[in-house]
Every structure is written in C-alpha cells, then in structure tokens.
C-alpha cells in the first residue's frame, strides 16, 4: 500500500524520475535545485543508472542528447540561468526528436537575480527560448505529489512523442516540504526505439541528427514537428477547474501561484464573491479551448503570475478578445500572498465595465500592480 | 611595546589568530557579539606582544589592528 510521508519537492522530482524509469542523470549544481543532483548522485549508482556531474549546463544538455540517443530514459535539471545555457541543446534535442526530461526549478531573474521563486521563464519555456520552430511539452506541478507523478509521467510522454518534456517548477515547489502518498509503483509505458543509436547489429545504421542542409528537407522536418505539436494539442492538454461553474471571475494561474490563488478564492467565497480557479497543468499544449469556452459564457479572467505577464499572453490569445483579462503579478522572487490576490479579486468582481486599470489590456507593454 | 586591538563586532570566532600568535596572547572571550558570534580577545598582561601582526594577517575578517 502507498506510504504517506513528508518530502521536499526536489526529492519528489528525483523519486518520481526513478519511478518513471530514469536511468541517466546529467546535471550541474544550481540553487534552488541542488537536492536533485545530490539525491541522484546517491541513488543512481544503487539502481545501476548513471550519474554525471557535468562541467556546465551546456555539457549537461549535450550529455542528455547523447544518452537519449541510445534510447535510455535520461534527464537533466537546473534553474533559470542554467536553463538559458541549455537553449541550443534543447533546440537540437527537439529537432533530433529525442525523448528527454528537463526540469527547471525557476528562480528570480533576469540575470543572476536571486534564488527565490519566480515564474518568469514561461516565455522561454513555451514560446521557444532556443532558435527555430520547436515546442516543449510542459507540465507545471503545484504540489509535492504532482512533482513526483508529473516527473514520472514526463518520461512516458517524452517517449510517446519522441520529444523533450519540461517540468516547470519554481523555488517554492522545489524547496517546499509537505505530505505525499508515494505510490507502490508507477505504471510506465516502455516503447520500442528502433531509431536508437546503440550499434547497428542486425539492422541498417541509425543516425541522430538535426542537420538538413536542403531547405526542402528541413521544411519537411519542421512540418513533421508541427504535426507532432498539433497531436500534443489534441491529446495532452491538461488543466484543473475549481468552482468555475458559477464564477463571474476566473483566476488563471499555475504552480505555486495557483495554490496561493486557491486560498485567496476560498477567502473571497467566504465574502460571497463568485470566483473560481482555472489551473493550466500543461503549459504547452495550452488549454486554450477551455478558456475560450468560459470566455463565451461571459466570465472575466484574472491571471496571477510571478512575472510581469507572460502566461497572460496565452490567456489573451485563447479568449481572443471575447473576455476581459486582468493581471496581477509579482516578480524578482517576490511571492504574492493570498491577501494581495484577494484585494485584486475584490477590485475586479462586481465591476462591470471594461478597463481593469491594471494597464495590461492596452496592448502596449505591461504595467503591474504591486501591493505596497 | 606592541599591542593589538580586536574589533569584537567584526570577529567571527574562528580562532585562527589564537593559533597563529607565537606568544599565545589571544583567547576566546565569554559571551557573544551582537551578531551572535563568539569572539576572541587580546590578553597581554606582561606586554609580551611583539607586534608581528601574524594574528592580523591570518584574520579572515580583518578584525585586528596592530600597533608597534
């Protein structure tokens, strides 16, 4: 039977990865995710897996590229600046159609920033921080249990689509300790990998490559990728709705800010305000259709992020002008607390006309409110 | 006659000066500074400090000044 214990998010990511069949880890230390390589260095040898502390994040992602080429389930993890260094490698992995899991425990940015929680790598993750038209199937956990389950699931998804999968967490999710029911074992779906470069015994040679020197060929590769992303959009959209049916205002938030918003919503409901939570779990593919549907029901939206309005753009693209979209964000490691969100809710609910005064609906660059 | 002054607030109590003083003229004081650190103190009853400044040179917190 499943055991209930306390666990830190970073540890849950490690345990989930191993449950998901991860047998190779390549990473470089960076706060706030250091527990991940540390646990991996202790656990991988025990299960006959490989652990390499790489010389840099650039090396990490390229070791993952090579290790994934063999068909093994492998991963790397880092935090914002380190993920930026991986962008070339991620673009290669996506193009070579290699299954791999990447975890970003986001910290305050830009620049060296700090080690507190942030969600300002959303654009980098879902729009493509690297060059070219590729996408990262992205899952955003909001609890330690999801850290475990999503990481395990990520390896299946990576294999299913032959694509890199990103777990987008943040310093709160990674550093937080709470209860988790660790499942006895996780269902994993291992697939054949006839494409793997593991020696051409009994077959013709395999090549892992992202070079298509003839534009026509590269365009065909791109169309293949686009078809794959369309398929993900059909099959892998994940989200959670809470108290949205009767809601006038729907808060859209993921990860830690979704949890904070949940508390704010409970407080608002106590005040009789009709507010609900829409939590995108897959950030790509994004649950646009569901948002549009709610928009057409006449609901208003409030996006809450630890950024200056990044997912906000996907919400706006989803509702396509059919609903008012407001924004509340903190940045640089500042975390909105439930009361700040509650204030914003109070300000918005019951208010009839268009402009929410947050300055984020004007099309031009985004202003932000900071509770003083 | 030489002497040193240890800035109690800068001291973190690493005890390196104590080990480096050829004359063993430094010891840990009781109590803590405002930062909650133990700190060392200069005890030179018979003025045997030679002002070699080894204590100061090894102090990572530049907490020691030396007069000669």
């Amino acid at each position, binding site marked *: 039977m499943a055991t209930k214990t306390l666990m830190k998010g970073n540890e849950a990511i490690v345990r989930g990865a191993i449950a998901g069949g991860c047998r190779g880890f390549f990473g470089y230390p960076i706060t706030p995710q250091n527990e991940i390589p540390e646990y991996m260095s202790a656990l991988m040898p025990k299960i006959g897996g490989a652990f390499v502390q790489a010389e840099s994040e650039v090396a990490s992602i390229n070791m993952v590229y090579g290790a994934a080429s063999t068909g093994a389930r492998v991963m790397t993890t880092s935090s914002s600046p380190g993920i930026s260094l991986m962008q070339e490698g991620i673009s290669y992995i996506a193009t070579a159609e290699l299954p791999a899991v990447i975890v970003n425990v986001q910290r305050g940015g830009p620049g060296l920033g700090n*080690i*507190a929680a942030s969600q300002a790598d959303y654009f980098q993750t879902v729009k493509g921080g690297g060059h070219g038209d590729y996408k990262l199937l992205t899952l955003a956990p909001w609890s330690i249990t999801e850290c475990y389950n999503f990481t395990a699931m990520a390896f299946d998804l990576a294999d299913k689509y032959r694509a890199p999968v990103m777990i987008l967490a943040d310093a709160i999710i990674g550093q937080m*300790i709470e209860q988790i029911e660790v499942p006895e074992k996780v269902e994993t779906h291992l697939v054949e990998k006839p494409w793997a470069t593991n020696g051409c015994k009994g077959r013709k040679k395999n090549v892992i490559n992202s070079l298509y020197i003839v534009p026509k060929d590269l365009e065909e590769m791109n169309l293949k990728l686009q078809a794959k992303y369309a398929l993900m959009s059909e099959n892998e959209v994940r989200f959670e709705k809470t108290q949205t049916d009767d809601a006038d205002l729907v808060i859209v938030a993921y990860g830690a800010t979704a949890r904070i918003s949940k508390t*704010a919503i409970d407080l608002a409901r106590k005040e009789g305000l009709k507010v609900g939570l829409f939590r995108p779990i897959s950030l790509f593919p994004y649950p646009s259709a569901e948002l549009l549907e709610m928009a057409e029901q006449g609901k208003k939206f409030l996006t809450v992020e630890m950024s200056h309005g990044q997912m906000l753009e996907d919400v706006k693209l989803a509702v396509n002008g059919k609903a008012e979209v407001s924004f509340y964000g903190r940045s640089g490691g500042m975390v909105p607390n439930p009361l700040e969100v509650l204030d914003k809710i109070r300000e918005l609910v019951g208010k009839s006309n268009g402009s929410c005064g947050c300055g984020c609906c004007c099309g031009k660059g985004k202003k932000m409110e900071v509770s003083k | 006659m030489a002497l040193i002054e240890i800035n109690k607030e800068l001291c973190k109590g690493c005890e390196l000066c104590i080990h480096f003083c050829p004359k063993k003229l430094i010891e840990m004081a009781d109590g803590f500074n405002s930062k909650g650190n133990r700190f060392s103190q200069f005890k030179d009853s018979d003025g045997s400090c030679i002002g070699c400044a080894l204590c100061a040179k090894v102090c990572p917190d530049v907490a020691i000044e030396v007069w000669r």
Partner: protein
Amino acid sequence: MHQEVIMAGTGGQGIMVIGQLLAYGAVGEDKNVVWFPSYGPETRGGTADCTVIVSDDQIGSPVTAVPDTLLAMSQIQIGRHASKIKKDGVIFFNSTLVDDPSKERQDCKFVGVPASAIADELGNMRVANMVMLGAFIEITKSVNLDSVCQALTKVLPSHRQDLIPLNEAALRKGAEFAAKLK
C-alpha cells in the same frame, strides 16, 4: 487548529532544522503541514527563514500573509518580520542576542528565551535553535514535544545522530523555561 509560523535567523543557526522538526512532529500527529524556506545565497551569514503551516485542514497557499507566530534567532529578524505578525500573535526571540523588542509591536505577545545562553550551558551553542523550538511548542501547543523529539532521527543528518540526546535536552530545557513564564 491552524498555525502559521515564520522562523527567522541567519545561515548556520539551524532555523531550517527546527522548522522541519515542527513539520515532522505535526505529521506524526496526522496533521497537515507545509514547510518552505527562503534564504540568501551565503551558506553562512545570509538570512535564513522558513515558513511552517500546521493545520487540521488541507493547506492551500504555502505562503503566509499574516503569520500567527514569529520565531526570531537574532536582532535583525525582528525588524524584518515583526510587522507581519497578526494582531495578538506571538513573537519568540532569542533574548541572549536580541534586546527587548516589545516596542516593535504593542499588539503582540513577546516571549524572550535566552536560547544561546541555555545552549551554551548545555555545552553547545549550536542547539540554541532547539531551545527556541522547545519554548515555542510549550507555548503554542501546536504539537507535542514528544512527537518532535521522535522526529529528531528523521531530521538530523546521519553524521549528527549522535547529538540527538543533546538536541532533545535542549528542546526540553526550552520548554521548561517557557513553562515557567506562564
């Protein structure tokens, strides 16, 4: 029962450990709990705070807007956090290192614990954190001291397990001291 506490200190004072002890203690009593830390980059010297929420209900936000309690190891933390504490909340401070801060908040209860001194008596400065936790538990009753003592094996790193008796002693000394205050 729903208790939100901020424990604040500087790196090396063992704030994270006592926060986790409280968390493990609470789980031992089948309560829900969330712990999360925030620190500066230095392994030492930098600020090191953690939030612990213990509750009979499911816990949403791990972030506390209005903590019930503050546990402060040294001076600066008072300044950084006292204002956030809820009206009639409790502020524990290490009176060995902190001058009476009661002017900071008229509407809070202040509990001074000479934690560093008591720890020093016990022969190891580093258990001042345990003394503070002991006092905290005695007064808030958010968990039983025994559950916390049992949690020591889980929380202390393997190379510190030999210090369990010392830590337990420090916890109890802190509790005793606090008991006398009532």
